[in-house]
């Protein structure tokens, strides 16, 4: 089975801190994604990557950046955390980039920004 591992289950940070969320997948998938999940709003796409060192903005990229230096690892970076970035962050991967394949999700990181 595909395993998508997010490094932290819970994180508490202060406003203005730089925050790194790490994600690793073990199935050699081409594509990786970062979503945030908020009550009543479903999952919203922040950024995705279809290849090493490549990235594409999703629907809500403001305030975030990403890094993909290796195929298996995709990092989400909050340059200066703000309280409105308190959320559940979900990483996912898929085999190809057509959008017509299922995503495999990690368990999520619940980030609280105080």
């Amino acid at each position: 089975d595909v395993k998508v591992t997010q490094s932290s289950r819970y994180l508490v940070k202060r406003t203005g801190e730089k925050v790194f969320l790490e994600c690793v997948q073990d199935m050699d998938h081409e594509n990786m994604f970062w979503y945030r999940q908020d009550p009543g709003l479903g999952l919203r796409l922040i950024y995705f990557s279809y290849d090493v060192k490549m990235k594409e903005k999703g629907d809500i990229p403001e305030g975030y950046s990403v890094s993909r230096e290796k195929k298996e690892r995709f990092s989400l970076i909050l340059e200066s955390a703000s309280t409105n970035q308190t959320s559940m962050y979900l990483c996912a991967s898929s085999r190809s980039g057509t959008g017509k394949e299922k995503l495999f999700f990690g368990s999520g990181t619940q980030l609280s920004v105080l």
Partner: protein
Amino acid sequence: GESVGLHLPTLSVQEGDNSIINCAYSNSASDYFIWYKQESGKGPQFIIDIRSNMDKRQGQRVTVLLNKTVKHLSLQIAATQPGDSAVYFCAENIAPDTNAGGTSYGKLTFGQGTILTVHP
């Protein structure tokens, strides 16, 4: 069914009943649809998917129906069990408009979710 808004739709059923979760989508260009189940404290798990050239697809105890005429998707769960209690999300792939300079990579757009509660 799912729609834009802050109040999550809910469905309560008795164990053994059949459940039907509905999802409306707005983009006629969507060509792939998928259902996920998310239990408390876990990431979403794939249930079943369907391409736009199909009307129905069956899995184990689950059936997805696609009505392109009215842009409606439904998930039917047979003989619902307490372990089926979760939030269910539909998602659609909106094919990119490369002629308009869009990326050639499609992406899934998720609905807000429906809470299913199964009572023993």
